[in-house]
């Protein structure tokens, strides 16, 4: 019931604060859309040249909105010259795909599309490719958009929950609460649930917008995407409120962004971890967003099941549990119960 009091109060405060609500619900959509547009701007019809036995394939490819050319002879030199996106050489035994890869987004798309198309006919799924530029590890929006979703959930929930509890500290209302019978764990629980409700709504909005409006790839279950993001929000909530006890003002809370948020971005898969020094990789493993992105990318990009991301989810849960306990401990500064 005391927890209820806090939850009701938080909802009332948030409903009055339209700007914060907009920041929470609309800002992530805006930034996601912008990034989507920037990364996807060269969305011209992919051009593909086919050499060899091609009659059947040409039709299929045209249906899939490829700009198809059939020729006898072709080469990578000609590809560069004509800026041809792909070259498929069909032999009796095997197919050979060469991608220009000047735009990794598109190259990946072509490869995926072809892979899917050919998988239904021939034996194994997918198709390997040679690259004119770069290689297959070149990152693309599709691969890190899942992580972006997780990042925005984390960032905005962290900031808003942290600043709210901070306001409660600086305005003296938190200390005032210590003169009422509310217990420390009740304060933290009230905050978690109160803001959790808004974080939940935010998560749903971001996930649905990304998948249904921006059409970000998702192969796995949308429920797993939401579950993962809820855990991310929980970690962000508890970390935000915890760090707010080390900030004396909203400005100081902002200073945690380059300290706590930005470094985590580097370990979310935008930059390949394999290439990093060993100690740097270990550093990434103490960051919640590392596990968050791993899980999201797994579900959305690779179609992982619950079992396959269970470890990541467990780690996120442990992070949240740790931060929640530390939150309750941090309130000991006021009183012992």
């Amino acid at each position, binding site marked *: 019931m*005391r927890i209820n009091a806090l939850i009701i109060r938080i909802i*009332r405060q948030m409903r009055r604060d339209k700007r914060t609500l907009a920041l929470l619900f609309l800002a992530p959509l805006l930034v996601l859309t912008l990034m989507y547009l920037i990364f996807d701007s060269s969305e011209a019809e992919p051009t593909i040249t086919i050499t060899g036995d091609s009659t059947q394939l040409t039709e299929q490819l045209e249906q899939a909105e490829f700009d198809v050319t059939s020729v006898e002879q072709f080469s990578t030199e000609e590809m560069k010259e004509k800026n041809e996106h792909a070259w498929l050489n069909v032999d009796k035994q095997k197919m050979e795909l060469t991608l220009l890869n000047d735009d990794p987004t598109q190259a990946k798309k072509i490869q995926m599309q072809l892979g899917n198309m050919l998988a239904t006919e021939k034996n194994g799924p997918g198709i390997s490719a040679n690259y004119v530029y770069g290689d297959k590890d070149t990152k693309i929006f599709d691969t890190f958009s899942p992580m972006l979703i997780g990042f925005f959930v984390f960032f905005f929930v962290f900031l808003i929950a942290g600043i709210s509890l901070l306001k409660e500290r600086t*305005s*003296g*209302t938190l200390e005032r609460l210590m003169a009422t*019978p509310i217990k420390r764990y009740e304060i933290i629980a009230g905050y978690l649930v109160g803001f959790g409700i808004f974080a939940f709504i935010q998560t749903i909005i971001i996930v649905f917008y990304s998948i249904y409006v921006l059409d970000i790839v998702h192969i796995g279950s949308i429920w797993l995407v939401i579950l993962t993001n809820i855990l991310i929000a929980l970690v962000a909530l508890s970390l935000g409120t915890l760090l707010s006890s080390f900030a004396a003002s909203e400005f100081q809370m902002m200073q945690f962004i380059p300290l706590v948020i930005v470094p985590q971005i580097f370990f979310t898969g935008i930059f390949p971890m394999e290439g990093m020094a060993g100690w740097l990789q270990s550093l990434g493993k103490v960051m919640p967003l590392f596990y968050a992105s791993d899980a999201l990318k797994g579900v959305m990009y690779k179609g992982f099941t619950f079992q396959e991301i269970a470890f990541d989810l467990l780690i996120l849960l442990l992070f949240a549990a740790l931060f929640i306990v530390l939150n309750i401990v941090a309130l000991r500064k006021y*009183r012992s119960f």
Partner: protein
Amino acid sequence: MTMAITVHNATKSFYNKLVLNKLSLEIPKGEIFGLLGPSGCGKTTLIKLIIGMLKRDEGDITVLTYNIPDQRLLPNIGYMAQSDALYTDLTGEQNLDFFARLYKLPKKERKARIQYVAGVVELEDVLQKRIAEYSGGMMRRLSLAIALIHDPEVLILDEPTVGIDPVLKRSIWRELERLKREDGKTIVITTHVMDEAERCEQTALLRNGHIIATGSPDKLKEKYEATRFEEVFLRAGGEN
């Protein structure tokens, strides 16, 4: 006389600064007790130790039947902080409602108490306004109303009348006296305004981390051969 509050050898320092030094004090039940002293002498600190919001370094404190800190005490305490701790983005009623819920008042009682305490501090008309639109005096009054919301046995008010106009001040004092007389409440107020001291039945003078004098205002004036209470304070403090 039974004591509502007993403080024995309480010591508290912040970092290296000793604020309360083996302070002992007894506050009787059912009276209006004034804790007096200049700004910065440690009145607020003492009050927070008594409630258990702040940990003391040494000493024993008993309030009603509880050894502080004890969470069972808190439902019996109505506290008004020196600086208004209100949710400025909520209305007066929502603030009262929040605290009423923290004391687990049932819905019906909650409504009735909100109306009653708002009446005491004459805020009925602005209950639907956000605190951001309140004046300083209105915020003080709302803080007092919050202290009364759960009808506590002991009221601890930290400089309750600062920033309140004389007319309202008088009506608040009347209400405090009525609460004491009719409901038998124990009321502890701190102040650095000496004319308020004369309305208290018992007073204690806090200085340099000790209680330097206690007694009724008249007794103290007699003892220090003073005509005004201010003089008592100066003489007790050893300044002429």
